[in-house]
């Protein structure tokens, strides 16, 4: 049987093969031309192509707006859910995370249809609100998780030291719940940048996000350029991860 630490070995090999190697391949393909020679042309093409750059900027903008919107709507909801004096039912929490498990495409199509029925022109506004529908549970859940596990004695101690309820929130609860907000951002921001089908459905193909361009290039066999665009995204993921620290695992552990 050997040492139990060796039990990690099969998974280590699996991760190297199916996670590390594929990511390295993105780098390799991004730095190659169609015949396998080293080149920086793919990267250069992105920075010189107004369309790609524009889409990229728009994607980042939409992602930032969507993330802020999710925090704005999701934080109060998470706060109320975690406050035992306001919400005593665990079922309500389940209701909030349940939409995460309904097929996102189907939900998005229905959302778009709802907008159309209500006579709302599909465009950037519907894109934002539709995205917010899709990603709100991913923001609420990690914030709720952190707030729910937060030791109540911190708030009591602050109150005991003279903080009004407002001050308790500003000086204690909010700063201590930031890891939850950060993992929420992590789960909303990058996925928003990279969505492809969802943005098309919500805007009736009017607005393309970065994910769509990657998908189009890969599907049209322009693997090297697609890989280069993916590489740019990887770099951004790397930067945001380093900036935010990885709180995702804590927040999503035991999500069921």
């Amino acid at each position, binding site marked *: 049987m050997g040492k139990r630490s060796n039990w990690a070995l099969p998974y280590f090999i699996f991760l190297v093969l199916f996670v590390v190697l594929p990511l390295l391949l993105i780098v390799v393909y991004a730095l190659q031309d169609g015949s396998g020679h080293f080149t920086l042309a793919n990267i250069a093409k992105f920075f010189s192509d107004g369309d790609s750059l524009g889409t990229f900027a728009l994607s980042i903008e939409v992602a930032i707006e969507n993330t802020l919107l999710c925090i704005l709507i999701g934080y109060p909801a998470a706060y109320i859910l975690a406050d035992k004096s306001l919400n005593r039912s665990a079922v309500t929490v389940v209701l909030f995370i349940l939409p995460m498990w309904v097929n996102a495409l189907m939900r998005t199509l229905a959302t778009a249809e709802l907008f159309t029925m209500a006579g709302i022109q599909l465009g950037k506004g519907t894109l934002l609100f539709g995205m917010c529908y899709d990603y709100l549970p991913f923001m609420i859940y990690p914030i709720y998780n952190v707030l729910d596990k937060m030791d109540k*004695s911190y708030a*009591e101690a*602050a109150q*005991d030291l003279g903080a009004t309820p407002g001050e308790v929130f500003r000086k204690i609860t909010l700063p201590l719940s930031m890891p939850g907000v950060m993992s929420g951002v992590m789960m909303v921001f990058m996925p928003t940048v990279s969505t492809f089908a969802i943005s098309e459905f919500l805007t009736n193909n009017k607005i393309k996000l970065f994910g769509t361009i990657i998908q189009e290039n890969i599907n049209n066999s322009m693997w090297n350029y697609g890989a280069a665009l993916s590489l740019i995204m990887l770099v951004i993921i790397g930067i945001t991860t380093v900036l935010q620290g990885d709180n995702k695992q804590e927040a999503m552990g035991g999500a069921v």
Partner: protein
Amino acid sequence: MAQDERIINIEHLSKSFGDKKVLDDINLYVRRGEFLTLLGPSGCGKTTLLRMIAGFLQPDEGVITLDGRNIEGIPPHKRPLNTVFQRYALFPHLDVYDNIAFGLKLRKTPEDEIDRRIRKVLKLVAMSDYEDRDVETLSGGQQQRIAIARAIVNQPKVLLLDEPLAALDLKMRKDMQIELKEMHRKLGITFIYVTHDQEEALTLSDTIVVINEGKIQQAGTPADIYNEPVNSFVADFIGESNILNGTMIRDKEVSFIGHDFKCVDSGFGEDMPVDVVIRPEDIYFTDSDTKAQFTATVKSCTFKGVHYEMFVDTDKGYELMIQDYDAYEAGEEVKLYIKPGDIQVMRKERTENTYEGSVVADGKVEFLDTEFECSTEGFAPGDKVLVSVAFKKVDLLDHDDEAATVGNVEFILYKGDHYHLTVRTESGEKIWVDTNDIWDKNDYVGIRILPKDIRLTKLQENG
């Protein structure tokens, strides 16, 4: 005592959580500047009482006054009290300095004064030079000191401490006890301290308030509580003791363990059943036949660091615990005596189980939410009756097939030749049992009472 010597006054305070009454008609005052300890087993209501004083809980009934002012409805942040929390509750996102400065900054204290006061308080808790440390890098004892510093820097009128030493190891706890006592002396602030550790309470307090099941059992100085416990719960909870059934023959004469003893208590009446408490260090060995009141055989002898702890079987078959500086070997025959002043006589809280019940049918009576068979001669179905069952007539079974109802053992008292158990039944009521069988706390037991052991008397109905 003058009213203004009382900084906190509590009258008729009650609190329930759901169906459970956690505090029941508490009356208590705290003297200005004293070190008062709320002592009791876990779940007795002591922390609830502290949280009501702090303002985190509202009483259902009763009044708490601080400096003569009713503080009902005043939120915690406006009360001139500060709390040291059980697990410290230091803010993890702030360093030591900002933790301590928290309360002062909220009060818009000038920077330089904050600085000065923090330095002073850090010196007091012996944590100077720790200002910039992250609180999570501190040891338990250090966090404890910072928690105290954070509270006292605000110069509260009363400092509330909720089991502040519970998370520390034994050595650290002993050191912190001495430091707390010292801090209390230096600061001159009133301390209200919650603990379940009787030794801690005896060491630290000016006044101890023993609480059990939501009621104050006894309040007094440590010496009072130790030497003159008012009931068997207090006697058992505070220090080691021999608790025995006895009979007050007449004033200043009591009989227990099969012998008559002189004592100093009077006013119990004649031939009254009582509880007798003898501290193990109050039983003396002697060589003199004239001094000796009874004899015993030593069963075991263990060295406890300073004294020896011995268990002896007396000539009449009772087991006693004795502490003495001299050791007597197991098997040795010894002569013993007890001084009249060391015999603590207490009125029995009850001498048998009594319940209000009702006759449900011929030969059937209901109490403890259960139907029992018994003779109902002289009663008609529907009659309300008073049911009496002697302690030793209740059988406890380790299976429930023959049992009328079931319960959990809540409290065990050894009385020299038998155990006196408090059992909480399924219906939430209590039944007291005398038994020779050995049960453990929280054991799940079946309860059986034979029909002949159930006595019914007519219940006086009002109107």
